[in-house]
């Protein structure tokens, strides 16, 4: 297990490094750069090339690419991601302020998905072709069909128009004020989770249906085991494995969906921070946020792999 974890961590590290390198290069290949974003395109704005070059020099963008890259990488290894070109504040400091906001939404969205989607999928499978099954399937389909931003807009319009209420806009960490934090993040979390709930519920249902038709389940029934035990001890433990894999992936997708949801709910999280940074070509911020996102997605996937071993005794990592 330790050897496996070490190997997976090493591969994960290489993956993160690859993402970071790709982001670094893509940012510099893309048209426009921070100096042009700040001063305007010399062809269009009338800013002189000298002004643009001076700013590039000041921000270290005129250095050879490999020098910039290794300098950034060395900084990142020491958790020094430089200063935002816009605010002139350390990126890490700003990111640390926004991470709990986004993490709160991701955690709540994941919890919502687990609490709602897995039981819904199980019930749907056990009650196949009943009214309950159809309701779950149709709602799941709706979740998959409606983009997060649209769900967010529906929630906001409905709440403001009919209840004159919106979640609090002032960030309250969960460890300081759990109730307020819950009120602030539950709706953005729901907007993000709605699609994931749909997908996971459908996946759980199909996995459960498949497992319930397996020989060992029939054998268990023949032995006279209680249906509850058959479902939870034998069927679910097997059916949940692909669901866990999917959850790991959807958390990553959820982070992508968060960007628009944060804008819609005026939540000052990592997503809004990233959007603003991309608009301003704020390289240090984009690079740091992408690196962190890659890290969290890789870490989540390793965690899912580890969970496999606990959920399925047949799986042994060597």
């Amino acid at each position, binding site marked *: 297990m330790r050897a496996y974890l070490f190997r997976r961590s090493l591969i994960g590290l290489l993956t993160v490094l690859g993402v970071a390198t790709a982001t670094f290069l893509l940012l510099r290949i893309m048209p426009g750069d921070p100096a042009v974003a700040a*001063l305007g395109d010399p062809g269009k*704005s*009338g800013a002189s090339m000298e002004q643009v070059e001076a700013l590039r020099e000041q921000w270290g963008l005129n250095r050879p690419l490999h020098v910039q890259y290794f300098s950034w990488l060395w900084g990142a290894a020491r958790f020094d991601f430089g200063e935002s070109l816009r605010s002139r504040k350390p990126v890490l400091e700003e990111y640390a302020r926004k991470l709990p906001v986004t993490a709160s939404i991701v955690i709540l969205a994941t919890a919502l998905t687990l609490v709602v989607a897995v039981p819904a999928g199980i019930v749907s499978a056990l009650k196949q072709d009943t009214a309950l099954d159809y309701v779950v399937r149709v709602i799941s389909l709706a979740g998959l069909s409606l983009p997060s931003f649209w769900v967010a807009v529906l929630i906001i319009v409905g709440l403001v128009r009919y209840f004159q209420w919106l979640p*609090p*806009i*002032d*960030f309250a960490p969960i460890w300081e004020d759990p109730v307020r934090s819950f009120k602030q993040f539950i709706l953005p979390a729901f907007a993000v989770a709605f699609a994931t709930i749909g997908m996971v519920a459908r996946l759980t249902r199909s996995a459960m249906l498949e497992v319930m038709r397996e020989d060992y389940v029939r054998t268990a029934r023949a032995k006279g085991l209680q249906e509850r035990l058959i479902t939870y001890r034998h069927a679910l433990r097997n059916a949940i494995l692909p669901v866990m894999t999917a959850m790991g992936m959807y958390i990553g997708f959820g982070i992508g969906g968060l960007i628009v949801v944060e804008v819609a709910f005026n939540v000052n999280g990592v997503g809004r921070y990233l959007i603003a940074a991309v608009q301003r070509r704020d390289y240090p911020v984009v690079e740091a946020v992408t690196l962190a996102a890659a890290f969290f997605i890789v870490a989540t996937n390793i965690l899912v792999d580890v969970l496999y071993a606990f959920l399925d005794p047949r799986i042994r990592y060597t």
Partner: protein
Amino acid sequence: MISRRRKYGIWSALFMALALGLALAFVAACAGAEEDADDVEAEPEAEQTEATAEPTASTSESEFEGFEEVEVAEPDAVAAEARLAPDGQYGGILRTMTGDDPATLDYMKIRGIGTVQRTNPAGNMLWRLHPLEEGRVLNDLVETWEIADGGMEYTLRLKEGVQFHSGSLVADRPGAGTSLDCADVKHTLEKFGNPEWSQSSNYVYAIASIECPSDLEVKLVLSAPDSGLVQKLSVGWSAIIPSEMPYEDMETTVMGTGPFIFKEHITGEKAVLVRNEAYFRDGLPYLDEYHNFVIPDWDAMIGIFRSGQLDMTSPHQGVGPQQASVIKESNPEVIVDLRAKLWWNTFGGPLDKEPWSDLRVRQAFSLCLDRVGAGEVYTYSTNVPGGYQPHWTQWSLPSEEVASLMTLGISDQFGANMDARRAKARELLSDYGGYSPDNPLKMDFMGDPVWSGFAYYQDTMSDCGFDFQLDEVADFSVAEQRRIEGNFFLGEMYGVTGVVEPTLIYADPFITGGGTNMTGYSNPELDELYAQLVSEADAATRVDITHQMERILLTDMPSVMIYWYDEGMAWWPWLKNWCHCDAGYYSILNMEEVWIDMDEATRLSRPSDVASISQ
């Protein structure tokens, strides 16, 4: 027995019906808002009257306790009156917003809304503007003052015992806890008058030297009399800083003597200012804290305001007739005021770059611009086309003359004779470079990619032979920076006029070397008249000089005036002593007399978790 496929079909149909119902409810909700907007469109005047009816009452002498006795009282006495007037508990957090992060915290260097609204509560000026009477000033940090030598010498006596902010929040900031003295005023005014460090250097160009006869005495020696000097030193971006503070520190640090201590600005989130317990006006401010949020999406802002999480929208902006009717329909108790006339909009470009450098292009632009049409499209005709001086004052030329100058004599009304004007515009563009609607003059137009105005102007002005290409700038502060540095060809320019003093309106955008002279306009004749206007004390003569300057500007058109922008704001009735006053814009922003009526807030269900009572 119903087949599985059929069952699924039935359930799908039911769900579709449910989804359709939800969609219809959503459309109905949106249509409600549209209907409201239609109502406004049909009867803009009626709506505006209704919207303005309440604030008049709310800012009346009886409710605006802070300045109840302002006719006879000095500011300290006024403050004392205000201190006694509110009945009940004070405290709480005032929550307002601005659409963007500040580009810098140096309010002298960039005077954008994002900076001024977040730093003003931390400062005091030498004088402050009377919130209810245009042009009248009150003492702020000045105790007494006198003018000698025919207006060439001002001697100011500063208030004693005024301290710069102190305590743990500001322990590492230069000048923390020091007492206000002449050196601070000298240090501030030297920055204020230095174009390298200030957008407003022309305000104090008449000051030849600043002397300190004693700690609390300041002597300003002028090179020429300046009848508007006191008004110009009453604006929010002239707040006094400690002499210990290096100028470059103002980019990231705020230090002053004001009612609130600047605690922090969190990028993308909010600025937080907390009560200055040692404020020199005893008992003020009433509020515990002042939070100014960053809310880039104005529709989201209206929603958040309606939910009660903002006590006010951005001061003096953010609410037009459409938003006003949406707010009033769902929250009739909210005070909505559309009567502010502070903002003006122009189009312009650097005069040292083709094609804006050519007068014929600027004239063609002005002729082709349908100011009335643009007002109808954007603001239900609540904007008022006019000249560079505020159209409701004596300083402005008559409307007919302004329209005539803007249209080269073709029309004396802003929206009339558009066909003839466009024909003349085509003629001018053809003369300039053979341009026509078939062979248009391409111009890069700096603007936000989501700004609907671009499409409107691109479409309506193509008839004259203009072809605008969008030079995208999504970030307001970047656009502002580019305007300042002249890195653009054509763009929208706007300003806010919190003080109706003609020299103050001309000083920055049109006088040679002015801090916001983004077109780079320089006209010796105008500069000379400006110098005369500054020194002239006779009111009638000043009006005459101002009119001469208006004629020059409307002929030269360094930037083409569009209209004065009638934008408004909204606030909840639990917010007391707030004055939506054009006249005192820069003084009222320091929020020292504003308080929150907790009983009213409870009655109107202000979200409990945004309120706090400290005493």
